[in-house]
């Protein structure tokens, strides 16, 4: 269950609109921020808040790449694999990441720190190859730069 304060905040936001379901993605994101991912229980909770069925919510949750229906790591790394980043060496970058973290695309490291996911063009083609980590962009990447970023995040997490 959501903490009361958070639930009240969402309810107020929903009460202020004529069309509660227009807020469904916002509500899902709020749940995801709180729980770390969108669990089955969270789907039910979100549906009740905006007056939709759980199937309707799940239909969206499974459609959008930034909504996670399974647990993800503390840092979700979205690797851009569209054509400009591909030209800029995305494949070797992605291989490097998988090797360094010891996981395949779509997996999470055993320590729960990192999840690797593919994503289509993120709109930073001027800084290709680029990735997002928790929606923050990192561009003009090289394997060395990536190692530095991963090391910093590990430090930040105290791992």
């Amino acid at each position, binding site marked *: 269950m959501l903490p009361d304060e958070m639930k009240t905040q969402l309810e107020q936001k929903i009460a202020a609109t004529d069309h509660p379901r227009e807020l469904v993605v916002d509500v899902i994101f709020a749940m995801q921020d709180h729980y770390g991912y969108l669990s089955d229980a969270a789907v039910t909770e979100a549906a009740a808040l905006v007056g939709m069925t759980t199937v309707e919510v799940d239909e969206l949750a499974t459609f959008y790449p930034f909504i996670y229906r399974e647990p993800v790591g503390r840092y979700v790394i979205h690797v851009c694999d569209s*054509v400009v980043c591909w030209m800029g060496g995305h494949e070797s970058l992605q291989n490097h990441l998988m090797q360094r973290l010891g996981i395949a695309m779509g997996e999470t490291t055993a320590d729960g720190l990192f999840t690797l996911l593919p994503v289509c063009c993120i709109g930073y083609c001027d800084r290709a190859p680029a990735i997002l980590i928790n929606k923050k962009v990192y561009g003009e990447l090289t394997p060395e730069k990536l190692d530095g970023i991963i090391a910093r995040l590990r430090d930040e997490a105290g791992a």
Partner: protein
Amino acid sequence: MMDTPQVLFKNRHVDRIATRDEYEAGGGYEALKRVLAEEARDEVQAAIKEALLLGRGGAAFPMGIKLSTVAEDAPFPRYLVCNADEMEPGTFKDRVLLHTDPHQLIEGMVLAAFAIQAAKGIVFIRPEYENAARILEREVALARKAGYLGEKILGSEFSFDIDVHRSGGRYICGEVTAQLNALMGRRPNPQQPPPYPTESGLWGQPTVLQNVETLCCVPHIVRNGATWFKGLALTEAGAGTKIFPVSGRVNRPGCYELPMGIRLSAIIEEHAGGMLPGSEFKACLPGGASTRFLTREHYDIPMDFASLKEAGHRLGTGAIMVFDHKTCMVAATLNLMEFFTRESCGWCTPCREGLPYIRDMLRRIENGRGEEGFIPILEQMSRQLWNAYCAFAPGAVSPLESLLTFFGDEVREHISARKCPFGNAPGGPSDNR
């Protein structure tokens, strides 16, 4: 390069966003003050129509005509949606515009809303642009405080406000009707008209949807006039400036505001710093992933909607992705097909089933397992995908069709040599078989 008139990028700074004060000091919100005081609603519509302002999001539909399809007696409330989804690969102009001068967009939205008497505006923005969403929320609040948004704007009878709506991602959300479904908390499938959104869009009400860059042009047109706007272009058919996001094998990838109708060669050589050392121009996609490859033959083509159309191409979003002589066009097209296959919403059969089929054939060709017989099948399929439900599939097959037309020899070389002549190793991540 500096003598190119900067209109949308007038207040562009290297590392910060222009403030409301700066925007006002450059004449910002003047147009809005005047038309509200003069109740010059018809003038706004007329100026946009006369300026030949074509939609900058890819479809190039004339904004003036779109506004006039909202009937005089259309029901209220009416909505204005600003498409800041920008998911067309290679395109990053709207992001730069939002990070440059957000009040330009806000004024453009108020003016467009005034023209159709819309009460509510919504900016639909992709999750990758979370920073831009926050900037907009902050600046919208500042504009509201200054009286440019909210009840009875600047003491007039007109009320209008803006909300920022975050998307969950997915390319199809850039399609007008899919975006409206997304805004209503529905699965973002496209919806074939009629009814057109200008009759029955968001919540069944009249809705006009415009791209960020298009809306950013509006304050300048209303302030300086249609003749001035048309005069910005280098070609008779063009109007205004265009923000060209350039990426790929060039020295200075980035966003350049240049006159509509500027030659492709000038964009690449004079503005984007020319090709990378050791690289020669082979082809480019002139307006995002859903346009056809432009080859050396069109290196000097004037970049405006009409000139490209005449040459059998599309300007799309104006996002120029440059490929060099060392790039395998089969592999590049395969990458684009991976993108379209993944992003298809799955609603209609030709798109859902056709794209993976094409992708698999290209994969086999790239990995040395292609057959001569694949080529006519691919040609046939690229024609048949035009029967899909929305514009997604015809866009998706544009690079494929142009690959077969302009780089047929390269495709055949893959097949006869049973390997990629560029030495791309099979068995990489894109070889899932």
